């Protein structure tokens, strides 16, 4: 499961902790990095590397929302719809976004596999709502036009990549 690079990184991670079990979160991030989600083999590999029961690994993944057990789109879009953001129209913004992406109200992955949309609680930018996080980048004070522009850029990038 682990590539050579990952194997080396894993060894580095393990050095930082007194017991292998303690390295569970960073090891899971490492396992998820390549394809953005964790399959059964990944979980088994982490369990074996850290000498932790596979059920415990699964329970940790289940607890944390940023570990995924199903394939996602190329880019993750997190829209905060918590109360302060909702007061600035984030809920409506999110609802419109799902429709424009052709997704159900609970979000999901677009048909072209480019985006996965999720409503999330606080991203600590209440004063700049509506806002979202795409991958690691924040986009704030959003309007429909602004997000369309951003999404169009991602689409163009993707097309370029596949063309090239």
């Amino acid at each position, binding site marked *: 499961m682990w590539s050579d690079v990952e194997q080396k990184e894993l060894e580095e991670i393990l050095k930082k902790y007194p017991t292998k079990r303690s390295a569970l979160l960073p090891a899971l991030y490492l396992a998820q990095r390549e394809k953005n989600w964790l399959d059964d083999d990944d979980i088994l590999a982490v369990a074996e590397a850290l000498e932790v*029961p596979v059920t415990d690994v699964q*329970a940790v993944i289940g607890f944390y929302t940023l570990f995924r057990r199903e394939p996602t789109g190329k880019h993750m879009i997190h829209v905060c719809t918590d109360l302060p953001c909702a007061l600035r129209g984030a809920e409506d913004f999110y609802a419109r976004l799902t429709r424009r992406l052709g997704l159900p109200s609970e979000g999901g992955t677009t048909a072209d596999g480019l985006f996965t949309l999720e409503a999330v609680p606080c991203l600590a930018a209440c004063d700049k709502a509506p806002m979202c996080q795409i991958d690691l980048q924040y986009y704030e004070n959003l309007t429909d036009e602004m997000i369309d522009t951003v999404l169009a850029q991602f689409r163009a990038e993707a097309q370029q990549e596949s063309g090239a």
Partner: protein
Amino acid sequence: MSELVNVTIDGVEVQVPKGTLIVEAAKRAGTEIPVFCYHSKLDPVGMCRMCLVTVGTPVRNRETGEFEVDDNGKQVIRFFPKPMTACTTPVSPGMVVITQSEESIADRRGILEFLLTSHPLDCPVCDKGGECSLQDLTYAYGPGVSQFYLEDKHHSPKKEPLGDLIYLDSERCILCARCVRFEDEIAGDPVLAIDNRGRNSKIVSYSNPKFDSKYSGNTTDICPVGALTTRDFRFGARAWELESTPSVCNLCGVGCNTVLNTRFDEIKRVMPRQNEALNEIWLCDKGRFGHHFNGSQNRLTTPLIKKNGQFEAASWDEALALVARKLELSKEKTGGVAGAHLSNEDLYIFQKLFRTVLGSNNIDHRIGLNANWDDQLAFEVGAGVGTDIGRLKSESAILVLGADLDEEAPVLYLRVRGSARRGAHLINAGGRWTKLDNIAEKSLRYRYGAESALAWGLVAAVLDEGLENKDFVAARVDGFEGLIDAMKSFTPTRAAEQSGVSEDDIRAAARTFAKAENGVVLYGLESGGNESLQAAIKTLLLITGHAGSANNGAIAVLPHANSRGAADMGIVPNRLPGYRPVEGEAGLSAHEMLSPDAPLPALYIVAADPAAQSARYKAAIEATEFVVVQDLFMTETAQLADVVLPARGTAERDGSFTSVERWVQAFDNAVSAPALAWADWLAFTALAGKMGASWSYASADGVMAEITQTVPLYAEMNFDNLTRPISLERKMSHYIYSGTSFTADTREGLQWRSVAEASEAKMPVAFIAPADVPPAEGMTLVAPRVLYDGGTLIAQAEVVSAHIQPAHAVISRKDAAQLGITADDSVTLTVPGASVTVPVRLNGLVPQGIVLVPRNLSGFPAEKLLGSKRLTAVKITKVPVAELA
């Protein structure tokens, strides 16, 4: 005794040891604080919040440090501003607890309303209904209505297999995590966890296979709601319709106390019967689910006589008359094999039949790979009466030698593990990794065959370092000087060379064992149990003073439900009941009786299936002129018989078993037997009658009455004593009624005293040099025991059929790599004169050079290869897939 503190709970003052939790202290004060997540067998976690109580402590004057008193001279109590969880708060001196404050009552009501937000309230169809904590506590403390919206209830699948034997209904689950904690803490199988969070939290298992634990059934007992149910009892009966009969598990030697819950003359479920000295409140899955053999359609229902190669139904009278006629002819040349599943009463009458009516000492209970093990240790230095192997602490050492307790005696594993968790020094000596290594303080990995060398090495290290218990040696040991002389040449260094365990490890283990206040040795099948080993264990126990008192001595982990009883009752060719030597010549062992070269004229085989085990035994039985088989099922041996007699199962009769810890325990009749099946002792008695004896036993009780007269060890073991109800006082102080059926507290057994306890006499020690086993060239075959083997009874219990292990061999991954073998392959194992082909399993924990083929599997591959040997060199070759097809 630890320091005591005074606390007042609901106005009742009680004294409890410092550190006691409020919930436990309250029990002493006669108050039951409601709990869900708390269980006295598990570590407290405070998850469910049901046990909230109001707690106050005496106020001290900050300047003087004195307790403040009010105008009436009473201590001033300051109550904590918030309620406390009684399950996690230890008492402190002068603490005042109010469990019925208005605040606490409101808290409980709120917690219950919250726990019930998504509860389906399907008590009328729930298996737990009638014995459910949630139901009981809701009646006692809950609100009658909910403020939550019905539409917002969570729904999830009603029947989700959590494992092969256990179903999860997560709508009913209140997330107390008792099941998760049981598997982590008690069983050491961390295979359950809570997945996700908040309202989506759910119990999951991702082990392969799911819920991979031999103790899974216990989670359904301790589940305080109906979330976990067993596959076989699901919708089987309502708890209040069940009748409860106290019984003893007959599937291994631990002697777990059980309750057989029956309805309409059918066993609906088997529950643990609490016995803190034996199984606490636990059962393994084999014991819980294995009972289904009783109701099997394949039971023998009538005596059968073979005429012209065909069995024909006959009456008992006809069948016994024929047997009597034939045995009159063979008389003292008759051979008798009795399986150690039989009760003490059966075994006693069996040997009496042979020794007094037939005049034959040819009786044995040991066949196949158990044939060489004749345990005398328990008789001489058995762990003292009152030994509590599950509650030892740091003052004690436990040495496990050649026993895979998790597979051989599961509940004993739980108990030893429990002691190790509480600080007992556990030394696990074995030829390979076993589960106790997970928790052992020290693991000694010896070379197979060198068990006695290791044991004598421990003795040598004790002597070399002068660690012997000098007072005990002076008072109780004979031949100590001679021992020192004899062992001059056998040093710890020599033991290290022979056993493959480093000298440092041997010395360290010897120090731990010798310095501990208490010391227990458990030795099992893989240790070989030969004379030299038994002498070494006996010597080790005696010179360290670990004999003759509670929590000190040896426990032989014998294979069957009544292996101990069979040894006690003299079902061996060389000893009478009570470990007295036979007068005159010893008889033949089972192995000698089952010899095709010198067949006996007649064999009486009871509750054993030697023909299935090896071609040699089968040929011997075929060559025997007259064979009687008495069993529950038409076994391979029965098919070769001239007369087959139907016997009753444990549940269908009464009797007693003696556990590996020498607990003699009575079991009662719970259900009717099929048609003409008889209890074994009755068949032997009737046969003796036909042969001229006039025995007048009317019941198992009556047989035991005679045993108390003739076998001094059993003098106290009459059924009045064995079935005496537990006193109310003991019930109150001792029993927890949480995870067991309410009628579970009926009786406890009795232990007989070993020689070391029974007298003050000196006991001899002598060095018997261990055989020097050089490291084997090539691979060595070892036959361990597995829980779910191909035993006659368990094979008839369909519910566990998925767990029954097919014939297979296990080798290390390293050996597999060298031999080019993968996990999908089969291998042919060859020894001179025999060869078997079985699928192979790879395991990183098996030592290199070892092939494990569990004994007693379907087709008996291990028995075929080993004959009567314990270990053998074996050639292993990969079988190409094409050849198999």
